[in-house]
């Protein structure tokens, strides 16, 4: 009830069992899929290097994978078979679903999602994945903007290119954040970037980009900007440079423009349910004795919100 039920992925393949070995098998398959996606050849050496395990361990494993019909050898290179691809996809699905679960349903900080999902992806059976997906409302994208493969094994393509490839002044929407390597993602998480966020590059130079994200100006290193993907913004939405509910003084009345994409899952639904939707007029009524939370009048009711939440609500003067 409190955690998704874990279980062992049953693949139906004649694979040697053993927890550690299965984890390695799944990681190798994921690596092969990753290489294919990036259009680079995969070998035992690349897998060993990417997974940080000895070449000999991978080399010993590969013949079994070939026997099981998951991998094909083409000269030096390793390629996934259809069965291998679908296995890899199911692990990826488990990973992205679990990240979504952590982001939407728990208070786990963003820089921990990936690490935890790396462990849990090997434990979620297909049935458990489906249950998790249902309980999350069958989300289409994970918190990094990666598409979650469906039960049927479909994945949609990924739009967008790195932030570094856009010119100054263009209005953009973030589509994807790469969650590896960890140190770089930690910077992205610290900046509070999230898929769906609108931003604009305002200055570049000195090995950094200056961006305006949801109205806040922030500095971002090139390494991190390389891993933030975006597309030019076409749809209207929350304009840049607007104010946030947290900046309102007591007694001030404002109109809601929208909620930041960084506010996800049940947190977002709850705000919407309480009437914090675009167009609602909100008035800061009073703050608690410790300064936070603040009570707001909205749609004829009084709702207490913490500062962090109020920061995610964009408003304009009535």
């Amino acid at each position: 009830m409190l955690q998704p039920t874990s279980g062992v992925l049953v693949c139906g393949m004649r694979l040697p069992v053993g927890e550690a070995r299965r984890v390695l098998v799944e990681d190798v398959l994921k690596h092969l899929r990753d290489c294919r996606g990036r259009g680079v050849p995969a070998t035992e050496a690349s897998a060993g290097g990417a997974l940080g395990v000895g070449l000999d361990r991978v080399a010993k494993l590969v013949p079994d994978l070939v026997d099981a019909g998951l991998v094909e050898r083409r000269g030096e290179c390793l390629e996934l078979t259809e069965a291998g691809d679908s296995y890899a996809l199911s692990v990826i699905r488990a990973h992205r679903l679990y990240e979504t679960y952590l982001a939407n349903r728990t208070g786990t900080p963003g820089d921990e999602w990936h690490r935890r999902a790396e462990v849990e992806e090997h434990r979620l059976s297909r049935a458990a994945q489906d249950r998790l997906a249902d309980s999350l409302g069958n989300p289409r994208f994970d918190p990094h903007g990666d598409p979650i493969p469906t039960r049927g094994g479909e994945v949609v393509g990924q739009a967008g290119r790195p932030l570094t490839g856009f010119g100054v002044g263009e209005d953009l929407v973030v589509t994807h954040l790469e969650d590896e390597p960890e140190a770089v993602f930690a910077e992205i998480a610290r900046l509070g970037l999230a898929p769906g966020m609108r931003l604009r590059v305002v200055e570049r130079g000195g090995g950094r980009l200056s961006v305006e994200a949801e109205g806040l100006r922030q500095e971002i290193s090139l390494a991190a900007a390389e891993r933030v993907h975006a597309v030019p913004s076409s749809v209207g939405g929350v304009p840049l440079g607007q104010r946030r509910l947290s900046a309102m003084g007591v007694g001030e009345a404002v109109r809601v423009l929208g909620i930041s994409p960084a506010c996800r899952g049940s947190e977002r639904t709850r705000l919407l349910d309480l009437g914090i939707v675009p167009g609602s007029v909100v008035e800061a009524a009073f703050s608690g004795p410790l300064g936070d939370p603040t009570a707001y009048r909205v749609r004829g009711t009084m709702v207490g919100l913490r500062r962090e939440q109020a920061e995610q609500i964009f408003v304009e003067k009535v």
Partner: protein
Amino acid sequence: MSAAKPDARSVLEAAHELGWRLPPDLNDRITEAIYAESSEIAGRRVRRRGGSMRLAWQEALDRILTGRWTGIPAMVLLLGVVLWLTITGANYPSGMLAELLIDRWWHGLREVFAAMGAPGWLRGIVVDGMYLTTAWVVSVMLPPMAIFFPLFTILEDFGYLPRVAFNLDRMFKAAGAHGKQALTMSMGLGCNAAGVVACRIIDSPRERLIAIVTNNFALCNGRWPTQMLIASVFVGGLFPPALGGMAAAGAVMGVAGLGFALTWLASLVLSRTVLRGEASTFSLELPPYRPPNILRTFYTSIIDRTIFVLFRAVVFAMPAGAVIWLIGNVHVGGQSLAHWMVGALDAPAWWLGLNGVILVAYVVAIPANEIVIPTVLMLTALVTGQAGAGAGVMFEVEEADRFRQLLDAGGWTVLTGVCLMIFSLCHNPCSTTIYTIWRETRSLKWTVLATLMPFVPGIVLCGGIAALARALT
């Protein structure tokens, strides 16, 4: 699917296909659209007359009850008044009930059994064990509950509990916990099992577990009477009679405050260790204050809460009474079982500032906290030989401070009283709560943790206070 009648499969395929192309913020837009419609209807059908007295009154109340300088003092004051009313108000009916149930009916029952020629062991188990323990539970528990619960319910109906959560949220956030934990904690003040169930209002599993595991630090109704009784006898007794009630209420407040501090500390430790994570969010509706209907509140809270809790206490007290009588009267090696047990536990209890009787009572009283005090009293009577007519039978003292006399004879001091108050806050939850925790978490690990964790501060605090008190004297 051209002209043919669509079937289920083609519907699902189309849904799937169309689903990918929807805007990502679909939910926002749908909610917005529905709200636009609600707003339009409400705008047409609702008229607001300006300047309502009620509105002004509610705003004024919120300025005090959630005010920067007044919010927290008002909270402390309200709790203090409730406790003071309960302690001073419960004294008199408690004495009357004791006189009726014990001094009169118990004697009467003994005579009836004697007249019927019932064997001594039967009279012992039924009258001196089961009846007497139950009588104690009723006379000790009923009056404070019948005052405390309605007062608490009035605050609840009035709409004060969400304000408590609102006021304390910042602290819970600092501990990595959910603001609504203040609500579940408040419910725990009534009954921990109910408090644990109430944790369902917390969506985040991590914060929910924190709230469940720490709920036991909210003093429950089974423990309020223990606190009040011991505080009246030992703390109130240190002051002139006029101030005794206030001092006792202050001491109980201190323990309740300690409970809050421990809740906070335990939440902090949990969210830094086994339940790592940041506090998620807090979106709590603050309902308008509604004037409570005082008479009906008294009626329903007495029926619903008081009678229910009392019934539970009685159900547990009767078998416990039989057990107490038996361990007091079954002799092994020339000593009663009770003597053996008390003797064995005296040494560890000494380090905690308690005594063997108290620890035995806590073992016997695992099913329900309510019967701790009656058990302590009966065991003390047994061990000190103040047992009136026969071993294993309750004492008779006519004076009002019958407890004090008996406990003095049992070697109790102010230190024992203080340590008992703290131990009563910091020990395992009752069996019902343990079962509820298991039912809510379905996890042995969390149930065991929640059961044993309270002992850590309990042992540290009691041991520390005992050592300090002994070093100073």
